[in-house]
């Protein structure tokens, strides 16, 4: 069901101005816990007639979850507006979509709603089992995004070898931003003395990584469907440090990039100082 342009024969709370009452999806909680995702919902509505239907057990809450990548479809019903359920991680992949409704448990004869739009005045409707009475809304999350590991640069970027290249290339049309190094440079990068040296992390972040990230962020809007963009968008929407930094304003992008990488320039200077001090210590 797609609720954007849908038109029901009977008044449905939450669809356009069919019924003049409050309805709220709230803030669904999605937590990763071991082998499952835990979903917690608190659905709210303020329509008197629908409250009566709930109290008499004629309607129930329904949350439908789908993941088209694994042909997953599950519906959860509840008499309570607080709904908790789990989804096995093995059952889903990529975008997982949810739609939350209130549906008729069985036939409801001559349904009408006192807060319905005047267009429905004088009409009543016979509802069948499953017919939608209220639409709370839709939400989704991406099961490929490891939300608990988003702070790591590796959640949105990787450095790879490209045998055909003479110069470094940045490819943002992949699930992660790819920094493609020519073989010789890649082998140097991978050598233990460089890649395993913690002191050089800030050097990489403020050079290779920052450059690639800036290219990606300046082209963010056109690549919003890529996993790297979803990871970054999640951080922008959920971390307080980005609250007043809209990515749509291009002048914010250098600051967003610095914040995403944990101020690499500062760390670079501190790191260089550390390298100099270690060298001095060694020479002493």
């Amino acid at each position: 069901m797609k609720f954007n342009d849908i038109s029901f024969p009977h008044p449905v709370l939450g669809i356009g101005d069919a019924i003049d009452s409050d309805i709220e999806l709230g803030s669904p909680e999605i937590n990763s816990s071991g082998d499952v995702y835990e979903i917690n919902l608190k659905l709210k509505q303020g329509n008197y007639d629908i409250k009566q239907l709930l109290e008499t057990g004629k309607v129930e809450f329904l949350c439908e979850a789908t993941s088209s990548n694994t042909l997953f479809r599950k519906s959860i019903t509840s008499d309570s507006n607080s709904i908790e359920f789990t989804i096995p991680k093995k059952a889903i992949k990529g975008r997982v979509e949810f739609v939350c409704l209130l549906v008729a448990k069985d036939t409801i004869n001559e349904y009408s709603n006192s807060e319905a739009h005047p267009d429905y005045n004088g009409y009543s409707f016979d509802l069948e089992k499953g017919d939608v009475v209220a639409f709370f809304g839709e939400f989704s999350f991406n099961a490929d995004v490891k939300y608990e590991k988003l702070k790591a640069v590796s959640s949105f970027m990787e450095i790879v070898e490209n045998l055909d290249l003479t110069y470094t290339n940045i490819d943002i049309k992949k699930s992660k931003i790819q920094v493609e190094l020519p073989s010789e440079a890649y082998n140097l990068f991978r050598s233990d003395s460089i890649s395993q040296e913690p002191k050089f992390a800030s050097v990489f972040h403020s050079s290779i990584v920052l450059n690639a990230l800036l290219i990606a962020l300046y082209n963010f809007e056109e690549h919003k469907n890529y996993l790297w963009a979803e990871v970054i968008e999640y951080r922008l929407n959920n971390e307080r440090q980005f609250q007043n930094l809209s990515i749509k304003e291009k002048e914010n992008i250098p600051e967003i990039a610095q914040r995403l990488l944990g101020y690499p320039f500062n760390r670079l200077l501190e790191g260089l100082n550390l390298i100099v001090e270690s060298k001095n210590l060694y020479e002493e």
Partner: protein
Amino acid sequence: MAKQLIFKTKYTEHLKEAVSSGKSLEFYKSKEFVYDKKQVLIMPNIEAFPNLTSSLDIKDDFKTAVQIYEAFKGLEPIQASDERFWTYLAHVDLFLYMIERWPEVYVGKSSNPSKYLLDHWFISSSAQSSLLRHAISGLWWSVYLSVDEAKGENKYGLTKILFRQLDFPTRTLGTYKLGRHKEAVLGILEFIQENEDLFKTKFEDKTRFVTKHLNVVGGVKPIAYYDRQFFKSELEKVSGNISAI
């Protein structure tokens, strides 16, 4: 018993690019596909069936589908939607089956060999329609959606109806959102089984009508809420229209 192998992600992409560019077409004209044996990973919890090809029948998609499903019954949905797995099977374990069942490039008769290979040997995305259209993954998923364990020895009875015409699982029912809800699939197949006379002629046209009709019903009703009886009774209401096709 050996564990099942799959291609690495980058190698899967490499194979796809080599077909798109036409560089590797010659590899598909041989009885054995030559690949880089270092570019594989092990699926630790899945047993390999290297001789599976011998039990497949290129003239019987139903039989083949059940054999593939039985061999890989333990796949979790997340594994069964992994293009690296199906690409590996198509190129290695089941390559002989593939060139016999989809022979146009092998015998040099394809007018667009790159497209033919991409359509049958590779999955274009992990979306439902791609999984259902792939030459091997489509067979597995069709059985997964139609097997009815409650029916014991006859658990594949409805699967057999689904395979009466290959387009039904791979291009009609399977590609609709309806196909994601197993009870809907079982309801449709049971309706066909219980109304054999209605489907004796024009099976393809009639199953297209059935799928489209229920998809329209699903436009205003939450499909996943209903069990198979609902779908059967919805089809009962339009049996006159089905008969008139």
